[in-house]
């Protein structure tokens, strides 16, 4: 038996090659975030132009700015959670986890609050030709697949969990962009921008189980 083990060890040692990855993950997270935001912008702006005057709205409406910046921060944190979950044995700081989930709930609750106190005057200015929930879903799935390709380079042990978290981040990026690309009506945002985020997360969980999980190895 030990002889067979020695043969395995000999074989594994002989095929060893140097690596420069050394468990680093934050460089991959930055690459994914930057490329995802760029790609989402390119895809969404190629379908329809962004809402006129969105930059001015960000600078003149504090509540709108806070909503947007919170969404941005949430996506950063969830991306970190997603990719670090693909490193074996890397336990996430509990405070970080609570802060991330808390901020995510806060971001969603801004739009519920906005049903009574909207950040901008509700208007259908910026209404997109193609159904925006479809755009959010499609772009989210593209970003999710890129996230999967990157996280496969790590060693995710819980594919469904990693897939779900990456799905939240991937869906969140186009949803956040719709904040400035689509019309600002809180009910519309909840149904057509936020809900697709959870759909992408669900798809991420299901795909992650088979594509990222142990069954894929």
């Amino acid at each position, binding site marked *: *038996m*030990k002889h*067979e*083990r*020695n043969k*395995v*060890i*000999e074989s*594994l*040692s*002989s095929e*060893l*090659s*140097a*690596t420069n*990855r*050394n*468990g*680093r993950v934050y460089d991959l997270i930055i690459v994914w975030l930057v490329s995802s935001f760029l790609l989402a912008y390119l895809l969404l702006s190629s379908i329809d132009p962004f809402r006129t005057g969105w930059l001015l709205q960000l600078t003149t409406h504090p509540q709108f700015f806070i909503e947007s910046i919170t969404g941005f921060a949430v996506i950063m944190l969830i991306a970190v959670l997603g990719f670090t979950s*693909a*490193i*074996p*044995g*890397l*336990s996430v700081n509990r405070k970080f986890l609570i802060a991330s989930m808390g901020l995510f709930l806060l971001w969603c609750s801004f739009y519920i609050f906005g049903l009574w106190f909207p950040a901008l005057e509700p208007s259908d200015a910026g209404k997109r030709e193609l159904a925006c929930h479809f755009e959010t879903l499609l772009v989210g799935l593209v970003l999710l697949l890129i996230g999967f390709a990157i996280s496969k*380079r*790590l*060693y995710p*042990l819980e594919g469904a969990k990693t897939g779900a978290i990456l799905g939240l981040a991937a869906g969140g990026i186009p949803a956040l962009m719709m904040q400035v690309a689509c019309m600002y009506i809180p009910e519309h945002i909840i149904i057509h921008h936020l809900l697709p985020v959870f759909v992408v997360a669900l798809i991420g969980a299901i795909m992650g189980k088979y594509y990222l999980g*142990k069954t894929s*190895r």
Partner: protein
Amino acid sequence: MPNKKQNYEEDEARWSGLMVSAQQGNKDAYHELLSQLGNVIEAYLRIRFGNIDMLEDCVQECLITIHKARDTYNPKRQFRPWMFTLVRHCMIDQLRKKNCRIRMTEQLGEDNNLDLHNPVHIQRIIDGIRVLEWLKPDYREAITLIKYIGMTTNEAADWLGISEHAVKARLRRGLLMIHRKLNLEDSLA
């Protein structure tokens, strides 16, 4: 006499150092590391799962898993949590396989003398196997009968007088409980 904490720290430093060398392409260091880890993993699994005949296969699978995941080890973090996370997942994966039967290397006087209706015989299989001692009686029964004795789920269902669906549910929950207990045990270590 070196204390436990000193041994722990020495092992940690040694394995981390060997893995860093391996990540730089040092095959001798990697060979040494895998040889040491093989013995550690064997002892770890034997204590928890007993003297099972698939122990060596599991050890080799764990070493292969460590090899595949070696890029994910960061020298700034501890080696043990990284390694044992891989070992635990690998072992649970093996147990979850439908055709996995982890028979004891020393059966009670060979199979034809094993009296499944004698609780003393069953208890002798369970005694000393840590993972079984962790479980609720229902889950322990299911895992002992199917994984250690080698019954099919259908046979276990007949033996227990319950549906096959219920046996599968107990088996699934039992394996999940083992996984959680292993995680908890290692996080408290």
